[in-house]
């Protein structure tokens, strides 16, 4: 069978055995029941087992910093006296346990999903989850236990979810394959954070690959080779070895300052989503947190976190970073990250809609709570505030005024905070780019959010397969925007960072160095390799590469050119090493 192709989302070579993980409800054939009491015992045993497994998973989620409350809600649902009564009625009416469970769950699913209320509608998905899980227990369908996988497992899923990641037996996973998800999807971010090679968006992978089949996965090129012959195996075993050696070379940069070949200092920071990610930041040796996404505090739950809960999370990160910079991005809600309990309306075009700072300024109580929590945390470390999706100076000024008011409030209450807290702008819209000079006069720093900036400049949805090819940071329009933003910041004398995926793109690093980017905020796992790449760059060479790249007219030409330059640089680097 020929190679399958997807999006290479997490670099590395994995060689292992395919294991599919599917979450569809299992099928069953209803059967006649003679002994109602025995059938009831069978159902009770399955429900008891369900409670036990769910409680364990909830505990695991708590430990990883996620919220186990939703899973505990599932336990309360199966314990519900009304639900139990309905089950009993079904059993007494002659249904088998599977049928009783399905009938009662389906009843609640139809009631909840028919409700005229978003929160109630969502509960239908919870009941559906419960139904699938308990049916599997009743039928003895072995669901794959993600916590105890065989060695060298190549996990094949439709899409990798945060709850799967929480349960994942990392040391035994050789690679991850998915049918859905792009380079910037959750699946991609999660697999890179776990340092597991991953190929995403492989069309029809679940039917094309069989359980137990040996495959080679190349997370860089996005290739998957089923049933490899000995030669191919040898070739990729060698490549895997090289990658491991490269990782070992990067280890040499641990604890070293980030600087170019000429000794020009730069900074490598990390992007995080939860306080639990701090372990990865410290393990990756990043010098600060360039983007602390706060949405994750608001997701997967049923009500907004209060000030104390937010303060706890922010303080935890501020303390753990011990005086190193922590840039907290205020709630970036909306777009693809709708949070149902905030009562946001469904929008025709969410990416051009009511989101991020627009929403927060219109819901001041919510925003005040978050800003107060960040201010309180600023007493415990080096904390900065970053505003997402700014398009106008007035937005920055309004946030500044709000922070000023809250500082006065805290002062009156004798609560400690940083009087000089820095407030910066995430530059991710064409509008912000074009008025970067105006924003720079009132901002303490810039951080370029290349993921959304690329999408907005190219007017292309990264997740849409038909136009995804347009979504590329190598397009001259995007490169010019980046150059302009950095130049504007430098002219105003404020620092400029980058917190999108592009900051870790080794082919782009010479360009970013030439433009004068000071801070590269990357996935924690990429911090050391980014520092190693920066160390290879000399000002003279970067200038030449940038001049060459900016003369090119298409994204394809730019990408090929930068790749060629990176290969040459790497070859030179190895040459120098062997002479030592």
């Amino acid at each position: 069978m020929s190679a399958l192709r997807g999006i290479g989302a997490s670099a590395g070579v994995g060689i292992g055995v395919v294991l599919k993980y599917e979450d569809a409800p299992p099928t069953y054939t209803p059967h006649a029941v003679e002994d109602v009491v025995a059938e009831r015992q069978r159902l009770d045993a399955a429900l008891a087992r369900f409670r036990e497994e769910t409680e364990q998973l909830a505990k695991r989620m708590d430990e990883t910093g996620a919220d186990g409350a939703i899973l505990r809600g599932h336990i309360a649902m199966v314990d519900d006296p009304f639900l139990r009564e309905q089950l009993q009625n079904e059993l007494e009416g002659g249904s088998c346990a599977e049928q009783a469970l399905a009938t009662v769950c389906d009843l609640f699913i139809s009631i909840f999903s028919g409700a005229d209320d978003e929160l109630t509608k969502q509960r239908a998905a919870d009941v559906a989850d419960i139904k699938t899980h308990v049916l599997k227990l009743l039928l003895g369908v072995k669901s794959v236990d993600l916590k105890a996988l065989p060695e060298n497992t190549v996990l094949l899923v439709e899409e990798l979810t945060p709850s799967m990641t929480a349960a994942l037996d990392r040391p035994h996973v050789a690679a991850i394959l998915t049918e859905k998800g792009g380079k910037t999807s959750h699946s991609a971010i999660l697999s890179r954070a776990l340092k597991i090679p991953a190929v995403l968006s492989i069309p029809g992978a679940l039917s094309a690959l069989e359980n137990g089949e040996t495959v080679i996965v190349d997370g860089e090129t996005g290739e998957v080779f089923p049933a490899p012959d000995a030669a191919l195996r040898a070739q990729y075993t060698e490549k895997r070895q090289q990658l491991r050696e490269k990782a070992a070379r990067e280890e040499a940069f641990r604890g070293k300052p980030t600087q170019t070949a000429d000794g020009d200092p730069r900074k490598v920071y990390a992007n995080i989503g939860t306080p639990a990610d701090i372990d990865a930041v410290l393990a990756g040796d990043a010098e600060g947190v360039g983007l602390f996404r706060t949405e994750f505090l608001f997701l997967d739950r049923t009500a907004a976190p209060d000030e104390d809960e937010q303060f706890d999370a922010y303080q935890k990160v501020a303390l753990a970073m011990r005086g190193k910079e922590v840039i907290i991005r205020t709630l970036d809600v909306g777009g693809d990250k709708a949070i149902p309990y905030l009562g946001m309306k469904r929008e025709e075009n969410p990416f051009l809609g009511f989101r991020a700072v627009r929403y927060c300024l219109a819901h001041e109580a919510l925003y005040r709570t978050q800003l107060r929590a960040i201010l309180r945390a600023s007493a415990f470390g080096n904390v900065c505030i970053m505003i997402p999706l700014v398009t106008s100076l007035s937005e920055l000024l309004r946030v500044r005024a709000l922070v000023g008011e809250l500082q006065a409030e805290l002062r009156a209450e004798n609560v400690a905070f940083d009087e000089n807290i820095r407030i910066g702008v995430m530059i991710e819209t064409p509008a912000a780019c074009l008025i970067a000079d105006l924003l720079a006069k009132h901002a303490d720093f810039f951080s370029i959010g290349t993921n959304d900036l690329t999408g907005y400049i190219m007017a292309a949805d990264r997740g849409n397969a038909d136009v995804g090819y347009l979504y590329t940071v190598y397009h001259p329009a995007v490169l010019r925007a980046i150059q302009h933003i950095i130049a504007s910041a430098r002219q105003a004398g404020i620092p400029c960072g980058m917190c999108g995926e592009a900051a870790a793109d080794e082919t782009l690093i010479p360009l970013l160095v030439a433009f004068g980017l000071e801070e590269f905020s990357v996935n924690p796992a990429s911090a050391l390799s980014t520092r190693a790449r920066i160390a290879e760059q000399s000002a003279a060479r970067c200038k030449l590469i940038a001049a060459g790249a900016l003369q090119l007219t298409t994204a394809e030409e730019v990408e090929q050119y930068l790749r060629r330059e990176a290969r040459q640089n790497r070859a030179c680097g190895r040459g120098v090493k062997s002479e030592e």
Partner: protein
Amino acid sequence: MVSKKVTVCNAQGFHMRPATVFAGEMGKFQSDVTLEHNGNAVNAKSLMNIIAACIKCGHEINVVCNGPDEQAALDKAVAMIEAGLGE
């Protein structure tokens, strides 16, 4: 039988988390506890019934308790709802 009218005052109404806590507490009483809302009688000991009832912030509900510990159950229910269901 005792009863009292109360207004739900927490922002999200009886959603998953408060409903779970509330139904759990009501389950500790021997008396039947019913929430009358929009002409429906909702079993207050059942999380699923409460969720299905879509009781939102600002809705007035009538709490009805009937049984040996009805006054204690009513006091507890009213106190929990008035305190914003722990939110």
